[in-house]
């Protein structure tokens, strides 16, 4: 086939031929075609099957409202289900396939559903499939699930890239038809920053689809000239292929720009689509209107289109959908289809006009007061049966029918803030609500101004109003002359005659009968109607069908349409690719990666890294010959405790706190007292939330009279900083305190073990003997011949330990220097696993214990909460429920048989107690293997735990069906007196 239905004219580039396939068959088209227009040009009307009954369907429209012609575009990982053929821009090599059919589009076995349709009325599934109960998941539902769905994803990663971005303008104009172009021209000439976005690849809107003139030009030429003029203006950004998705708060609009969908694949480095957030002071909705159909029996055959879409195909795409065409209309706009097509040399069989009044079209068989009552043609329209005003019926042989029930303004975005659309009796359609998004106005057909003149006029007027609000100079441009004909619509929603089905929502197969059934069962609220029948729930979001359903329900219940209900819209305006919404944040780039100062060095050592929040930290450092992680970790722990180990602890939050009131401030934010801490000393601090639960812990060092350095846990660095600012600004605004994070500024290493001092003394320029730098000392020092550094004598491992910090850029060099200095002691680097082992051996709490549910008392730190001063959380930590004698207490746990491994998350049960909640004693929070104790050991929260030390219980993991007999011990497994860290 070679474009047998291609006619003269149109806005396609006939100098180039594009090849494409549909269901494997090769076809050709031209630049400027959509997939649908090219298929129609090739005589292909059948493009899809409906959702429920698998009815054969062709395109209903030529735009984004399309319910029927949806295909799988492209193949392989780029396969894109449910793509509207009516807006898919043709490119060379395009491959498309029909979907939701088996084995083929023309012969679909699931078409059996259509024969069984009496059994599948609206909501039938709520009334059956209930017996026996177990059959739902096993039998009924799997069948339904397999049959449902539309297109398919390939299960391969989307290979394309997506971008996001932010645009700013004075005025955003949505839609580049006559109203949008006129508005843009007006605003741009006044000097405003304007963005003009249009979902189409060719700007001009209906001007491209009509034969109407603007000024002395054809509408399409005027649009092209105007676009060319605008493109020259630096204050205008033209964004074709850009759909404004939604109106967010305060003038923010979301939009998606399809950068590469018209190309076989995106150019290297270029995104497929970009999600824009557009920040605008004003917006003008000029999104046009969507034609609506009339429901009648078998109104869903391929070849039956909206009347305006027949014009679009003929005028813009140079395609005759059929060579013998009828038009069914209740308004004057539908008549244009007949005159336009006839002018193109297409045979007009008849215009079936439901109205009695009005003039007859010259030279065309124009039937007044007539209706289409049935059609024939299984895979494509062959004939229509009409009922004349005098009651006579007649069958006309036609292969295309245009239907016009009027035009609905595309007000969707204007109702995104839940404003109710307003019924307009002049055009018998809803128009934008009065309470729409602030500073959004509507112009042109979107505002209900349906003529070209009215579009131009309201476009200019709304632009001027926006300019005035912006304080910019306005001028009323000379409006080019254009038609200003009224619609002359007499409402007519559906043909009552006939026993067959008249389709409202063509994708979801909702019929007039379904609406009647919903009425019969009292699902009369418009929301109940939609939910019960699935009206408007398909991929076209009910753009053509919703109003029909509403109107029919209104008629059935004897109410007006606005009384029956209105439909408000939610974003997105048309469905939007998930990839665009995700942008660049996916795969390894899902979140930024934070690397420690020693990362490069650790990677050279072959370290295994682990995600800790956004950080990557060395988890352990395998050595040659070590085959399990335990071997590495045991070695790191044993060697640290035997000699010395080094660990990068930069990830802990560091907050610089200065000011005359810093000490008093710390007394407020910590449960214990800090203001008495001498200069040059560090103290462990416990920070509570106001509800008395522990928020964070860490050490804070007093570096000077008014200079303090707080450390936080890695996880809480950001929330603690926010909390400190809250306390400083909102609670104690007159405290002289200044805060800034220095987490990233310093590379900080823990040096732990009996030889820590010896090692460090080789790099530190000052004397750090126990006398000069005792336990819990801190100070500014220099290292390696004069580099400024900080030293803290603190220990998480329970060993003689220091934390040393240098400016981050020197962290890499420092760890190399320290490892070299430590060679004589056999110094090891250790990772987070060993850190965890040593802290559990020492009984220090960490993330698993600081889980936001536990108190200082739970942790055995109840005495730290000073009641002599006010501090955040002090009062509410005293509530009875948090102070029960038999409440949870931190304990240590050892297996009675040291060879038995423990599992974190196991629960405590008494020996012999049944595994039921009433016997639940608590749980194991952290489990490590202690090479020192040669046993799995754990920390846990146990009810009345302190009193149970020495007793035996079971640690039960019901998930793995294991249990271990354990002894409850002190959480301080290792060096409970703390001799080593003071050594």
């Amino acid at each position, binding site marked *: 086939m070679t474009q047998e239905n291609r006619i003269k004219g149109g806005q396609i580039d006939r100098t180039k031929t594009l090849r494409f396939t549909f269901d494997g068959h090769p076809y050709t088209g031209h630049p400027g075609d959509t997939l649908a227009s090219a298929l129609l040009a090739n005589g292909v009307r059948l493009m899809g099957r409906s959702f429920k009954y698998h009815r054969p369907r062709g395109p209903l429209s030529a735009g984004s409202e399309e319910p029927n012609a949806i295909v799988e575009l492209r193949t392989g990982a780029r396969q894109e289900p449910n793509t509207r053929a009516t807006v898919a821009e043709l490119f060379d090599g395009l491959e498309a396939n029909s979907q939701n059919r088996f084995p083929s589009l023309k012969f679909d076995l699931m078409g059996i559903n259509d024969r069984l349709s009496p059994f599948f009325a609206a909501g039938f599934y709520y009334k059956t499939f209930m017996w026996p109960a177990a059959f739902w998941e096993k039998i009924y539902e799997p069948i339904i699930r397999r049959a449902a769905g539309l297109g398919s994803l390939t299960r391969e990663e989307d290979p394309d890239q997506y971008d996001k971005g932010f645009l700013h303008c004075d005025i955003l104009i949505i839609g580049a038809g006559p109203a949008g172009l006129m508005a843009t021209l007006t605003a741009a000439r006044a000097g405003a920053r304007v963005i003009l976005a249009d979902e189409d690849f060719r700007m001009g809107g209906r001007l491209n689809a009509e034969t109407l003139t603007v000024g002395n030009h054809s509408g399409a030429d005027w649009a092209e000239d105007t676009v060319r003029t605008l493109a020259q203006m630096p204050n205008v950004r033209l964004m074709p292929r850009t759909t404004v998705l939604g109106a967010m708060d305060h003038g923010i609009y979301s939009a998606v720009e399809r950068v590469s969908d018209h190309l076989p694949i995106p150019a290297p480095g270029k995104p497929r689509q970009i999600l824009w957030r557009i920040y605008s002071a004003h917006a003008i909705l000029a999104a046009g209107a969507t034609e609506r159909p009339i429901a009648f029996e078998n109104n869903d055959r391929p070849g039956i289109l909206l009347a305006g879409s027949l014009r679009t195909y003929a005028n813009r795409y140079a395609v005759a959908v059929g060579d013998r065409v009828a038009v069914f209309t209740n308004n004057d706009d539908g008549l244009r289809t007949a005159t336009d097509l006839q002018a193109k040399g297409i045979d007009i069989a008849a215009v079936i006009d439901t109205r009695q009044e009005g003039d007859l079209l010259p030279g065309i068989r124009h039937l007044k007061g007539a209706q289409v009552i049935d059609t024939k043609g299984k895979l494509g329209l062959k004939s229509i049966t009409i009922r004349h005003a005098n009651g006579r019926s007649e069958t006309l042989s036609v292969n295309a029918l245009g239907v016009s029930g009027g035009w609905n303004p595309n007000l969707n975005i204007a109702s995104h803030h839940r404003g109710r659309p307003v019924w307009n009796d002049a055009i018998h359609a809803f128009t934008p609500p009065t309470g729409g998004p602030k500073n959004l106005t509507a112009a042109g057909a979107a505002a209900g101004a349906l003529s070209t003149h009215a579009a131009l006029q309201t476009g200019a007027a709304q632009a001027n109003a926006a300019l005035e609000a912006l304080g910019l100079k306005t001028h009323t441009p000379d409006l080019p002359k254009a038609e200003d004909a009224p619609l002359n619509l007499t409402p007519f929603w559906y043909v009552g005659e006939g026993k067959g089905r008249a389709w409202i929502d063509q994708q979801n197969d909702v019929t007039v009968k379904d609406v009647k059934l919903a009425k019969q069962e009292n699902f009369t609220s418009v929301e109940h109607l939609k939910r019960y029948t699935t009206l408007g729930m398909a991929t076209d979001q009910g753009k053509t069908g919703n109003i029909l359903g509403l109107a029919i329900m209104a008629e059935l219940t004897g109410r007006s349409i606005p009384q029956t209900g209105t439909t408000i819209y939610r974003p997105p305006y048309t469905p939007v690719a998930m990839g665009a919404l995700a942008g660049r944040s996916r795969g390894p780039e899902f979140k930024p990666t934070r690397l420690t100062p020693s990362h490069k060095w650790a990677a050279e050592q072959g370290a295994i890294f682990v995600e800790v929040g956004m950080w990557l930290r060395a988890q352990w450092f395998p050595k040659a010959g070590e085959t399990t992680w335990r071997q590495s970790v045991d070695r790191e722990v044993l060697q640290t405790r035997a000699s010395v180990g080094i660990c990068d602890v930069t990830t802990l939050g560091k907050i610089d706190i200065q000011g005359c009131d810093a000490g008093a401030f710390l007394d407020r934010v910590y449960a214990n007292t800090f203001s008495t801490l001498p200069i040059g000393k560090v103290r462990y601090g416990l920070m509570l939330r106001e509800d008395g639960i522990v928020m964070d812990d860490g050490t804070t060092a007093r570096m000077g009279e008014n200079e303090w350095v707080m450390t936080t846990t890695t996880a809480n660095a950001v929330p603690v900083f926010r909390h400190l600012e809250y306390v400083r*600004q909102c609670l104690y*605004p007159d405290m002289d305190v200044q805060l800034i994070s220095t987490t990233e500024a310093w590379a900080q290493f823990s040096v732990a073990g009996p030889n820590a001092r010896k090692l460090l003394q080789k790099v530190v320029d000052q004397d750090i003997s126990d006398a000069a730098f005792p336990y819990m000392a801190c100070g500014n020092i220099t290292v390696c011949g004069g580099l400024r550094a900080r030293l803290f004598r603190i220990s998480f491992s329970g060993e003689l330990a220091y934390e040393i910090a240098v400016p981050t850029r020197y962290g890499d060099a420092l760890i190399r220097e320290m490892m070299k200095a430590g060679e004589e002691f056999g110094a090891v680097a250790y990772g987070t696993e060993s850190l965890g082992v040593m802290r559990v051996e020492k009984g220090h709490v960490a993330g698993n214990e600081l889980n936001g549910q536990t108190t200082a008392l739970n942790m055995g730190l109840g005495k730290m909460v000073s009641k002599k001063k006010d501090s955040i959380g002090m009062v*509410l930590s005293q509530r009875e429920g948090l102070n029960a004698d038999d409440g949870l207490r931190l304990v240590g746990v050892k297996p009675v048989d040291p060879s038995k491994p423990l599992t974190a998350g196991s629960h405590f049960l008494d020996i012999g107690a049944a595994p039921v909640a009433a016997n639940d004693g608590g749980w194991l929070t952290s489990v490590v293997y202690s090479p020192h104790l040669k046993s799995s050991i754990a920390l846990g929260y146990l009810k009345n735990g302190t009193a149970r030390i020495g007793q035996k219980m079971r640690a039960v993991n019901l998930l793995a069906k294991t249990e271990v007999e354990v002894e409850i011990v002190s959480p301080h497994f290792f060096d409970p007196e703390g001799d080593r860290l003071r050594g």
Partner: protein
Amino acid sequence: MIINHPLLGPRDAQEFTYLGDAALIDRPDGMAFPDATAAQDAFHDYLYLRDNPAGEHRELWFHEQGDRSWLVVTRNTVTHEITKVEFARDVARSRGRSK
């Protein structure tokens, strides 16, 4: 949403972190009560109970990805319209808070 920062002008709300009702500024003094029950009663009401109005709401936002100011934003919870933005520090002072 856009919050019109007193110094920086309009900024996307995404730069901010939300806390809640600005009444959290009115924290009781934990040492000012005759007994623990009275203190806990007062702190319970302060921390847990909310007006939660459908309408104008004064609330705390932290310009976390900005200048680190805590702001009191007066915003309508039905329309999201923002009618006033103040530095929380100024509000706290005006409500008698000091050190």
